[in-house]
C-alpha cells in the first residue's frame, strides 16, 4: 500500500532536469549519445530474434509495423532519463547512424528515419511542455513517431502499396510505437533506475526518494 502511495506521489511530482532545460550538462550529452550507440549494437542482437518472424512479415509486409516501435526505444529511453528537449532526437540520430555502419537494410536512408522518429517522440513530451515524464507522454510520443514514420517509409520504400495497406501499416506502427516504444521504454527506465545507475538523472532521484531516503 505504501509503495502504491509513493508511486502515485512520485508521478505527481516529476523531477525535472537540473538547471535551465536547455542547459545540457556533459553527462546528459554523453549519456544520450551512448544510449544511441548501445541500442544500435543491441539491435544487431535483436536482429536474430527478428529474423524468426521474418517469413511472416516478408509474406505480409504491412504487418511488420507491429515491431516498429522497437526502433525508437532509444529516443523514449533518452527522453525519460535526461528530460531535456532534444534528448530523444539526439539519441535516435546516433542509433540511426550506427545501423548503416553495421549493415542495415536501408543504408543511409535510415538517418532520415532517425530524425523523424526522434522528432515524433520529442513531440509527445513537447505536448506536456517538457514538464511531465511519465507513461502518457512516452506513449503519445511513441505513437506520434509511428504516425510520422509511416509516410516516410511509404514514400521511400513501399511506394507501390495501395492506400489501404499503407493504412494498416500506419495503425500497426502507431500501436507499436505506443506499446513497444512508450510502454516498454518506460518500464526499461524504471528498471534501470533500480540499479542505481541513473543516480545523476531525475529518474534516479525519483527512485532514491521513493525508497524513502
Amino acid at each position, binding site marked *: 500500500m505504501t509503495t502504491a502511495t509513493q508511486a502515485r506521489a512520485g508521478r505527481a511530482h516529476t523531477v525535472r532536469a537540473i538547471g535551465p532545460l536547455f542547459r545540457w550538462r556533459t553527462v546528459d*550529452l554523453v549519456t544520450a549519445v551512448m544510449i544511441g550507440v548501445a541500442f544500435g549494437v543491441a539491435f544487431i542482437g535483436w536482429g536474430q530474434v527478428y529474423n524468426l518472424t521474418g517469413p511472416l512479415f516478408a509474406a505480409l509486409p504491412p504487418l511488420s509495423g507491429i515491431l516498429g516501435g522497437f526502433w525508437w526505444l532509444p529516443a523514449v529511453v533518452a527522453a525519460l532519463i535526461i528530460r531535456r528537449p532534444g534528448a530523444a532526437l539526439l539519441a535516435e540520430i546516433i542509433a540511426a547512424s550506427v545501423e548503416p555502419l553495421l549493415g542495415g537494410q536501408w*543504408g543511409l536512408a535510415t538517418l532520415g528515419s532517425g530524425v523523424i522518429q526522434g522528432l515524433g517522440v520529442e513531440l509527445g513530451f513537447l505536448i506536456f511542455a517538457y514538464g511531465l515524464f511519465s507513461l502518457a507522454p512516452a506513449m503519445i510520443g511513441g505513437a506520434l513517431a509511428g504516425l510520422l514514420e509511416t509516410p516516410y517509409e511509404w514514400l521511400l520504400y513501399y511506394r507501390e502499396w495501395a492506400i489501404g495497406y499503407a493504412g494498416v501499416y500506419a495503425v500497426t506502427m502507431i500501436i507499436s510505437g505506443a506499446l513497444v516504444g512508450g510502454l516498454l521504454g518506460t518500464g526499461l527506465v524504471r528498471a534501470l533506475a533500480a540499479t542505481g545507475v541513473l543516480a545523476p538523472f531525475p529518474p534516479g532521484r525519483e527512485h532514491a526518494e521513493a525508497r524513502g531516503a
Partner: protein
Amino acid sequence: MTATATATATLVVEDFTWRPYGRSEPVLEVSLTVRPGERVLVLGPSGSGKSTLLRAMAGLLDDSLGEQQGSVTLGGTAPQAEPGRIGLMLQDPSHAWVAEHVGRDAAFGPENRRSSPHQVRTTAEQALTAVDFPYDAGHRTTALSGGQQQRLALAGALALNPDVLLLDEPTAMLDPPAAATVRAAVLRAADERTLTLVVVEHRLADWAGVCERTVVLDRHGRVLADGPTIQVLADQESQLLDAGIWVPGIEPLTVSDLRASDPVERSGAGPKSGTHSRSGGIYGSSATGLTDFGDGSAALELSGVGLTAPDGRELAADLTLTIEPGTFTVVTGPSGAGKSTLLHTVAGFIPGAGQVRLPGATGPIDARGLRRSTELASVVAWLPQHVDLLWTRRTVIDEMLATSRVLFAGDPVRLAAANARAETLLTELGLDHLREADPYQLSGGEQRRLALAAVIVHAPAVILLDEPTVGQDRHTWAAVMQVIDRLRAEGTVVLAATHDESLIAAADHRLAIGADRPPVAAEPADHAVREVVEPGAPPAARNNPLALLIVALGGVIGSFFVTDWLVGVLTLLVSVLLAPLAVGRRTLVPTLARLVPVALAALTVGWSTLVFSDRAAFSSAAFVAAAKEITRIACLVVPGVILVGVLDPSRLGDALAQRCRLPHRPVVAGTAALLRLQLLLDDWRRIAQVRRIRGLAPGRSLPGRIRHVASMTFTLLVHVLRQAQVMATSMDARGFAEARRRTFALPSPWRGRDWVAVAIALLLVAAPLLLSLR
C-alpha cells in the same frame, strides 16, 4: 591565457561536506589545504569518499547528485573558473579518451579552451612529447594498451598546463611494468612543472615513497590523520590494514590467517593428491558435472593449441599441457601476451584453436566446440575481468544460484547442495548482509566477490579466473585466495591469468607465455598533429564527409526518377562503375556483406509490390512494377552503403561542427560515442559469452530468446550508462563543460575532389532523369 602562476596556487578545501541524495548523513566532511608543489597521498577504506574528494577538488561534483556545503578554491578562485588548471586522471583510462587518434585526443583540452588551431596543435604535440609517448600522433587510440592510454590521459591533462594533478588510482588496472611507466611519467611531469599532486591509492608501495604527506580518511569521510607520510604510516598502520590498504612490508593476509577463525573443518582430501575424490568437499556433497572418472582423465588437457591475438598476430603455437585436478596454476606474461586468449580457448570461445579436453566433458572442445551452453557450464566456469557484464538477476542470492537452478533443475539433491554452498560462500565472502541486494548496487570490491561466487557455486571441474585480484584491497584479495584454496582442496582445476606477484607466489604451477614483444621502433615517434589517411585507403577516403553524404543524397533523389527496371539497372550501373573510388581492397568484403541485407530489402519491397499494390496481385502489370521497385530500392540504398565504408566519424564530426555549424558539444560527444562502436560490439559479445558459459544461453524457444536478448540489452545499457558518467567527468576535467563554441585542431577542408563528388551526385540524379525521358 596559457601563462600560469604555478607557485602561488594553493588548493583550499574549506569545511566541505557532501551528502548524496538518498543518504541522511554526509559521506565527506573535510577541511584541507594543499600547498603549491606538495604531493599528497589520500588513503581510506572503500566508501570513505576518496574519489568524491578528488572530484570536489576538481570542481566537478554535480549538484544533481547531492548537496554540497563549504568551498573549494585554487589560488582564491573556483577550480573550474579556468578549466584545466586542475587535471584529473581516473582509474580506467578506456573511458577517458575522446578522439580517434592520439594527437587529436591530446588536443581536446586546448580545443575546448578555444586556442587557435595552430596553438592547439603545438600544445598537443608538446604534451605528447612531454610524456615521451611511444607512438605517432596518428596512432589509433583504441589500439593502445591500458598503460599507454593512461599516459595519453596524462598528456591530455598536461596540454592544459595544470597547476594541480589529481590521480584516482591511476595504476590500479595496470600490470606492474605499465604502472611503473605511468608513475615515472607523472613524476617527471610533476618535477618539470612543479605540479601539485593529490593521489588516491590503496597500494601504498606505489606512491608512499614519493608523497611526503599522507591524509587518511575514516569511513565517514572525515580526516583521521594528516601529516608526514612516514609518521602517518607508523601511527596508523593497524587502521590502514583494517581498511584493506596494502602497506609496504606487510604481506597479504594468508589463507591460514583466515582459516584460523574458520569454523568449517578442512577437507581430508589433499590438494595435490591426484585422487579424484570430490565428495569430501568443504561445501558438502559434490555438485559437479563430472560424469565419468573411468578414463582417469580428470585433468585439463590441451594439445596443439595455438593462440592468436585479436589483431591476428600469432602468440603461441602448439601449446601442449596437462593440468592435474586440485592444482592452482597461474598464467603469466606481459600485457598482450595471450593470457586472456588462453583462458578463452579453454572456455571454448575460440573454436579451432586446438584440442582442449575438459574433465567430465563428453568430448573434446575442438573446431566444433561444445554445443550446449549447459554442457559447457557443467564443466567449466570463467570469471571475466569486467564483472559488471556478468549480472543477470535482480538479487545477490538469485545471481549466485542462477547457473545451479538451470543445471540442476531436475535434481533436487544437487540443487540443495548448491544452495548450501551458496550460503557458505555468502558468509565467507562477507556478502551475507547483501543477500537480497541488487548486484548492480554493490561496491566494486563486493561485485568482484559476488562474481567469483556466482561462477563457482555449481562446482564445475575447471575454473578460469582472469585477473581475479586486480585493483583489489587486502581484504578482497584474501577472500579470493581463500576461495581458490578451497577449490584446490576439492580437486578443481584452477587456472588464473594474473600479474599479481602475491597470487603467483601462492600458485602450484606457473605458465609463463609470450616473453618476447616486438621491439618499439627505434626512431622517435612523430607527435605532430595532422590529417590521418590510412595507407591503401580508396580515393574517396580523402573527401570531405559532407561531399560523400551529398553523393548518397544524389542516389536517394535519383531513385525517384526510376520509372522502369531498365532505367534502374542502368542507374545502378553508374554506382557500380564508380564504386572502386570508394571501395579499397581491404573494404571489399565488408562492403559486399553490407549489400546482402539491401538485396533482401529490395526483394521484400518487390514482393509487397506484387501483392499489395493497386494492381491485381500477381498480374503481369504487378510483375513489371515489382521489377521496377527492386531496381529503384537498389538505386536508393546502394550509393550510401558503398560510401559508409569511407565515412569516418571523426572527420564527419569536424565537418558537421565547422562546415555545417551544428552545435559543437553534441557533435563532439556524438563522435566520441560512435568511435566506441567497436568496443561496445565487443562488450555485447562478452555478455553473450558470459551467459553461455554460465549455462544461461537460451534454448530454441522464441520467448526464451526474447528474454535472453532483452536481458543482454539491459546489461549493456547499465554498463554504457556507467561508462558515460566516467567519460563525462573526464571530458569536463579537460574543460568541455563550458565549451559551447570550440576551436578544432584540424580544419575540414573542401577541395577540388569534393566538387568532383558533387558532380557525381548530380550524375546520380541526372542519369535516371534523362534515361526515363528517352
